[in-house]
């Protein structure tokens, strides 16, 4: 298509130059010819009734006409949409797309030193200079400042039909502020639809330094919000009559929290389990924050509270499933886990029934093509197809305050379109065309079992050396975004991991209660994942430090029948 486009462009330039001389800048000429019409297509507008056979006209990045009978401009490039269905561009409501890998994450503060462990844990460069806060506690970080256009992840995401994404910095407690971006554009500025959109808050402790536990995370969040309240008060008093008052020190971190305290900026809080969501909402109540829950696996258990408090959910479509092989000698899986996996695809339907507003996010799915097949499972789990489409489009736009420009096919809105051969949630359908900001996107064929990148998900056979020979264990990790869960089985017992964290360069850390010589004690693992290899150090109270190393086997081939 680009070649055709270029040829067409050349022709128009020639034409235009005849009319208005060659003085018109090329850029203006180009945008003047960015007119497309998709005709004879089924159009699912979301905002209005479905048009069984009609056309959408887009010009200059905007939708200029839509309907059953539409005048097709003479200069429009026409795409025959017979057999195609046009949808508003799909929105992924929580990602790190466009953000560079070494981005702000929790990392040690102070305590410089040499050594293996220190090298592993060396902090990435904080993105804000002169912050009053440690890395991981800097609400002033803007995704906007970090976005880089292009890249594999963006390409594969839009090839799956996603045109727009909320992107937030990685890791930390005060993670920073997200931006809503279109997944095309040559500069960060061209990509941004709205910024900042929301403050993001995670509850995983820092890998080193305070807070080092869930307890400290809450205390820190609370203290910083209190400090911000006082900062606001002090600034107000000082501005009224500075004479005779010592000037309050400026503080970008606290300054960044003021829109949050005023309720002008929503706070996206990462919480899956029921109690995690309750805690997040309790904190929001305490400081009158406008909360949005991201993840939300157990949100169906809290529909009353979410609905009453008008809290939206950015529901993950990274549905849990069993990853370990069937071994008769193995411990049966806990009933809780079995129940959670079966309940996950039903969550969306229950939220819809209870009128809790929600939108979908890919939730760190490493194979983005699973997004639609998981959406299909969610529909089988009781969500109406219309509601599923809304959760990918207009609901997301509403939650992020951009429903006036995105989320449906209406004249005047941004021309983000996902055009399918077949119906969106049919397993046999394919993405035919994607338009972002009125431009067609070159689609990349889906690569099954795409490279997991830095993902830690999977089963890791490890050898753990605690000074008395090697012990074999299997680490099963599940990564969702920058969050990590998992369990460990084998010679050290069969346990769930706690405080698991993953850094941008593959730094991994977790604790696990291990059983050694009949005694159960806490072991702290810290190391690094490089590709499919993992190694690091183990520390157990009262023992000299040990080490672990392992290699992840290649993933099982994708089964076609699911």
């Amino acid at each position, binding site marked *: 298509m680009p070649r055709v486009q270029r040829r067409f462009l050349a022709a128009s330039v020639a034409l235009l130059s005849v009319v208005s001389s060659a003085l018109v800048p090329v850029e203006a000429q180009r945008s003047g010819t960015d007119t497309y019409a998709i005709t004879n297509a089924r159009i699912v507008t979301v905002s209005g009734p479905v048009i069984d056979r009609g056309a959408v006209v887009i010009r200059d990045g905007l939708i200029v006409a839509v309907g059953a009978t539409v005048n097709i401009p003479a200069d429009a490039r026409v795409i025959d949409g017979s057999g195609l269905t046009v949808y508003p561009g799909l929105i992924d409501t929580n990602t790190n797309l466009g953000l560079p890998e070494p981005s702000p994450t929790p990392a040690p503060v102070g305590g410089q030193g040499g050594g293996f462990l220190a090298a592993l844990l060396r902090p990435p460069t904080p993105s804000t200079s002169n912050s009053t806060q440690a890395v991981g506690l800097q609400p002033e970080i803007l995704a906007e400042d970090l976005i880089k256009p292009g890249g594999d992840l963006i390409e594969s995401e839009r090839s799956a039909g996603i045109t727009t994404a909320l992107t937030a910095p990685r890791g930390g407690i005060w993670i920073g502020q997200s931006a809503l971006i279109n997944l095309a554009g040559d500069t960060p500025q061209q990509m941004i639809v709205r910024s900042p959109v929301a403050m993001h808050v995670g509850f995983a402790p820092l890998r080193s330094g305070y807070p080092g536990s869930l307890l400290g995370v809450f*205390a820190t969040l609370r203290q910083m919000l209190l400090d911000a309240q006082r900062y606001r008060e002090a600034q107000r008093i000082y501005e009224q009559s500075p004479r005779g008052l010592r000037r309050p020190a400026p503080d970008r971190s606290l300054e960044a929290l003021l829109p949050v305290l005023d309720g002008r900026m929503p706070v996206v809080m990462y919480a899956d389990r029921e109690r995690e969501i309750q805690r997040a909402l309790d904190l929001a109540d305490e400081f009158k924050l406008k909360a949005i829950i991201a993840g939300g696996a157990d949100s169906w258990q809290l529909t009353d509270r979410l609905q009453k408090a008008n809290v939206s959910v950015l529901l993950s479509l990274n549905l849990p499933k069993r990853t370990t092989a069937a071994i008769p000698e193995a411990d049966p899986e806990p009933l809780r886990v079995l129940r959670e996996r079966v309940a996950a695809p039903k969550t969306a339907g229950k939220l819809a029934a209870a009128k809790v507003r929600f939108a979908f996010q890919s939730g760190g799915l490493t194979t983005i093509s699973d997004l639609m097949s998981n959406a299909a499972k969610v529909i089988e789990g009781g969500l109406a197809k219309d509601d599923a489409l809304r959760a990918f489009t207009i609901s997301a736009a509403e939650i992020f305050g951009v429903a006036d420009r995105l989320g449906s096919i209406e004249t005047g809105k941004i021309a983000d379109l996902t055009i399918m051969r077949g119906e969106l949630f049919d397993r046999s359908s394919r993405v035919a065309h994607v338009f972002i900001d009125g431009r067609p996107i070159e689609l990349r064929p889906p690569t099954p079992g795409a490279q997991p990148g830095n993902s830690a998900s999977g089963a890791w056979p490890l050898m753990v050396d605690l000074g008395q020979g090697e012990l074999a264990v299997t680490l099963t990790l599940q990564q969702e975004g920058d969050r990590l869960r998992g369990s460990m089985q084998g010679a050290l017992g069969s346990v769930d991991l706690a405080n698991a964290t993953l850094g941008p360069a593959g730094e991994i850390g977790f604790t696990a209660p291990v059983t050694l010589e009949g005694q159960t004690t806490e072991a702290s693992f810290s190391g690094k994942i490089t590709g499919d290899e993992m190694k690091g150090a183990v520390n157990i109270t009262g023992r000299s430090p040990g080490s672990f190393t392992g290699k992840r086997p290649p993933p099982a081939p994708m089964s076609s029948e699911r």
Partner: protein
Amino acid sequence: MRLTKSRKATARLLPLAMLVGVCLSFVPQSLRAQSGEPSETLIRNATILTITHGTLENADILIRKGKIAAIGKGLKAGSNARVIDAAGKFVMPGIVDCHSHSMLDAINEGALAVTSMVRTRDALNPNDVDLYRELAGGVTTLNLLHGSANPIGGLNTVVKIKYGRPVEEFIFPGAMPGIKFALGENPKRSNFPALPGVTRRYPGTRMGVEEVIRDAFTRARDYKRTWDEYRAAVAKRERDLIPPKRDLQLEPLVEVLEGKRYVHAHCYRADEILMLINIADEFGFKIRTFQHVLEGYKVAKEIARHGAGASTFADFWGYKIEAYDAIPYNAAIMTRAGIVVSMNSDSDERARRLNIEAAKAMRYGNLTEEEALKLVTINPAIQLGIQNRVGSLEVGKDADLAIWNGHPLSVYARVETTFIDGEVFFDRQQDLAKRAELLKERAQLEQAEPNRPPARGASPPSPRGRRPSQTDDDLWEGDRP
């Protein structure tokens, strides 16, 4: 051959059976007749161990609207009342565990030496299966403490084990707020290996522990003064005042200074116990309880004079240097010195059999039956400031109690039913009846698509049986070294 086979089958069933117990915990709602919970319950013909008013044979106890309405013989209840014939059985107050880390998703904030800003309330997990096991041991109230990683640790939460209810309903209404302190090896991190490149946290000696506590209270005193001055200035209508910073670390310590928050201090050695008493005297506050306090018998007089309580183990010691000089007579000696003594669990496992811990004090130290029972009922209730609500069977108190099939100081005794605020939260018969259903549910769930194992997956997790408790704060030292 056949024998082998059947034995194998049994071996396979065993962990399954153990799992059933685990499973039960996840459907607490269905265990209790929630909607049909009667407002009156009459337990008849039981041996009632009131703790504070002796033992009544063949007596009845009437529960109405969550409270104990009457105790005596030949009591009558309304026609809708649940009537339980407890002939041959024993009724005792719900056990109060003065040192627990159950239902905490995080126990230690070990990154700093003073973490009075952290709250156990923020990390409660109302679905922790250990809670159900504790109910099955006749326990109804827990003092959830922060771990012992720091000289001054986080804030406690006193809960009733209302398993299956929203977490707000667990919070014991009106319990005195408390805070954890810790002395000795844990706060000075002596049992933690030095990691290359990682600076060791201060303090590293007992002297340092003392200094950290003194420094914190000095700062708390200054903080209080700053706020007092600000409030005085506001009262004088001075204008344009910028309020002082609210400091969540120092606020609880000001409450300690004002006598509004109880100090629960983890300790072992006699010298450090005296040290803390001296600091408390210096700053004018009281230690409410010494926890573990294995050398309490050496300084029982001093502890009694200070007015502190002691919460100890019956016969758990020797797990580290500072725990070597312990004796099983500790609880009895401290009791005789006039200290309010309790037996705590500090372990999700020991919490299931605190009645036996109490019984040991009769064997070692000759406490009377009633004195022994007090160690796990009214005494810990006094230590937590909830003795007007729980800890004994008296008219007007909360109906937190358990029916035992034998004398609770016998190793053969077992809990039949546990009540909290007059509602059943554990019932052995209902538990047994539920197990087949859970097995069926499991079988169905295992057939569901997301639970089916992939053709190729992770290597086999080896069967390990039930995982032992790891929340004993002396073994389980925190989220990170």
